[in-house]
């Protein structure tokens, strides 16, 4: 997919202009400290000098995802040199992070931590670098080079890499601004996501291309509290959030009045219409949008705007995910891979400029998840999302549920089978089932049912914590003598769900 270098024109050039023109404006607010575009530019330049010294074959570079200026600056520094970042969260078990870095063949890691996390690798300690000369002019790099690789939960205990090319990311940025979302140096934009989660990319990158300020969440803070505080103290104007945040804030909606908010976007989980309508009163001047998309199709790729006055389309109380953004194609297929008619259910498939070149070194998964079909007279590559959807006569897509056992916890993709894999590995022949259930706060929690009499589950939980990130660890444990089976002879998960 070679075009006339859109990453240069959509991303690198706009950042270069913004950092020059708005040098004294704030680029970041991190833990109550402001950093100007000038400071950001200097930090990028210092890191870039070290990146320049890397061998040409060090293409994928690991990045320890801390909440500081150096970590964000490293991303831009890598892109300016045509390299790709592979983020690892320092709170994730080291074994999993090492697996990710090994898979990506990242032998160099940029780390701003006081104590380096991967001493066995070649480490660029970004906090110790000294700025000498401003150096933000991009080098010309082919658009099919990668911008980042994010790893998500795989079904067999091995994280699955999703590489996103510079073309993909440029396509997203172009389509994002074509949604009518405007930003300028007066804007204050929320960045609530861990850098291993691709919604972070929109949250930090879009503002930096327009001279706006990015507000991050310190890692040791309770997220929804800190967000509520930012809304009130700093009058944020743009926020992309996961719906679980407004579920948490819902009991306090009457205390929230954020008139400054211009664009309030939701992504990562299904968005209930009722809570959205109540939220609308908290952000009376905002355009509220439900956006949708898997990591494979670069951040998000469909959009639906909430109507304050009129009817809103929903299915089972969940707001429509709307229509494709510019450059994206959506189709809904049956199990014979034939497109279905309006109003008929099927699997949502995505194609177009934002679509990943394919899973990282994983031919088997690629054969399963990607296929070519005739779309408007051309053979076009599509990705099967695993999301059960239907489109109405006007083309608005309704999300109906998953066709497999993947779930979302606070926006993170979780394969229940991966949790079961590690539980069974520890339990040794005792069967265990992971169940997603909705708690009192309307958020998704993970429960585990073990086919056994009671025992102390602490050692099991400790084991799982060495294998998986925190959001994948079950919060509730139950025991049952034998699993109920459904008419197909499979474990009846619906019955087990009632235990939570």
């Amino acid at each position, binding site marked *: 997919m070679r075009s006339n270098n859109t990453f240069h024109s959509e991303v690198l050039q706009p950042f270069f202009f913004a950092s020059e023109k708005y040098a004294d404006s704030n680029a970041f607010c991190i833990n109550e400290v402001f950093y100007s575009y000038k400071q950001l530019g200097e930090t990028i330049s210092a890191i870039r000098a070290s990146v320049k010294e890397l061998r040409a074959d060090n293409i994928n570079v690991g990045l320890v995802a801390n909440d500081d200026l150096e970590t964000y600056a490293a991303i831009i520094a890598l892109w300016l040199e045509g390299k790709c970042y592979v983020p690892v969260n320092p709170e994730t078990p080291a074994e999993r992070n090492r697996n990710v870095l090994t898979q990506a063949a990242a032998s160099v890691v940029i780390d701003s931590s006081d104590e380096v996390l991967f001493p066995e690798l070649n480490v660029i300690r970004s906090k110790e670098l000294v700025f000498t000369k401003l150096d933000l002019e991009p080098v010309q790099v082919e658009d099919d080079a990668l911008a980042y690789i994010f790893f998500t939960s795989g079904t067999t205990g091995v994280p699955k890499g999703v590489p996103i090319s510079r073309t993909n990311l440029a396509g997203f940025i172009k389509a994002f601004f074509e949604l009518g979302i405007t930003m300028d140096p007066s804007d204050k934009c929320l960045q609530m996501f861990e850098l291993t989660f691709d919604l972070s990319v929109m949250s930090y990158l879009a503002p930096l291309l327009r001279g706006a300020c990015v507000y991050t969440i310190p890692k*040791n*803070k*309770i997220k*929804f509290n800190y967000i509520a505080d930012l809304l009130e103290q700093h009058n944020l104007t743009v926020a992309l959030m996961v719906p679980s945040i407004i579920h948490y804030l819902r009991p306090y909606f009457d205390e*929230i009045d954020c008139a400054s908010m211009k664009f309030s976007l939701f992504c990562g989980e299904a968005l209930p219409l009722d809570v959205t309508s109540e939220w609308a009163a908290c952000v009376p001047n905002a355009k509220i949008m439900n956006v949708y998309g898997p990591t494979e199709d670069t951040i998000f790729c469909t959009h639906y705007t909430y109507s304050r006055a009129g009817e809103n389309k929903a299915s089972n109380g969940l707001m429509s995910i709307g229509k494709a953004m510019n450059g994206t194609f959506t189709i809904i297929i049956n199990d014979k891979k034939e497109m279905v008619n309006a109003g008929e259910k099927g699997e949502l498939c995505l194609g177009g400029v934002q679509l990943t070149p394919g899973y990282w070194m994983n031919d088997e998964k690629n054969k399963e998840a990607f296929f070519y079909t005739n779309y408007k007279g051309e053979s076009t590559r599509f990705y099967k999302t695993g999301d059960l959807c239907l489109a109405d006569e006007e083309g608005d897509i309704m999300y109906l549920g998953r066709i497999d056992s993947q779930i979302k916890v*606070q926006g993170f993709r979780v394969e229940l089978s991966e949790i079961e894999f590690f539980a069974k590995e520890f339990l040794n022949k005792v069967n265990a089932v992971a169940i997603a259930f909705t708690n009192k706060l309307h958020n998704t929690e993970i429960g585990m049912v073990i086919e056994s009499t009671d025992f102390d589950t602490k050692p099991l939980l400790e084991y799982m914590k060495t294998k998986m990130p925190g959001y994948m660890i079950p*919060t509730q444990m139950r025991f049952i003598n034998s699993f109920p089976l459904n008419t197909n002879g499979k474990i009846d998960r619906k019955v087990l769900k009632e235990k939570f």
Partner: protein
Amino acid sequence: MEKEEIVNKLTPVFRKVFADNSLVITEELSALDVENWDSLSHMLLIAEVENEFAIKFKLKDLNKMANVGDMIAIISSKL
């Protein structure tokens, strides 16, 4: 209610929410010190504390709460 009395009432609540029967409550204790103290358990904790003392926190109260000492101060202001 005396500070000590509040701590005594808070202890079983904390131990239940964080599933840790040896958890000791101090004024300095915060989310940094307790492994499972995240957004989800924080909300559950808040709900349990509200029940225990029959009070209702404001969002502003929650935003100010950086450690258990803050929580005790806010609780005692509401009793």
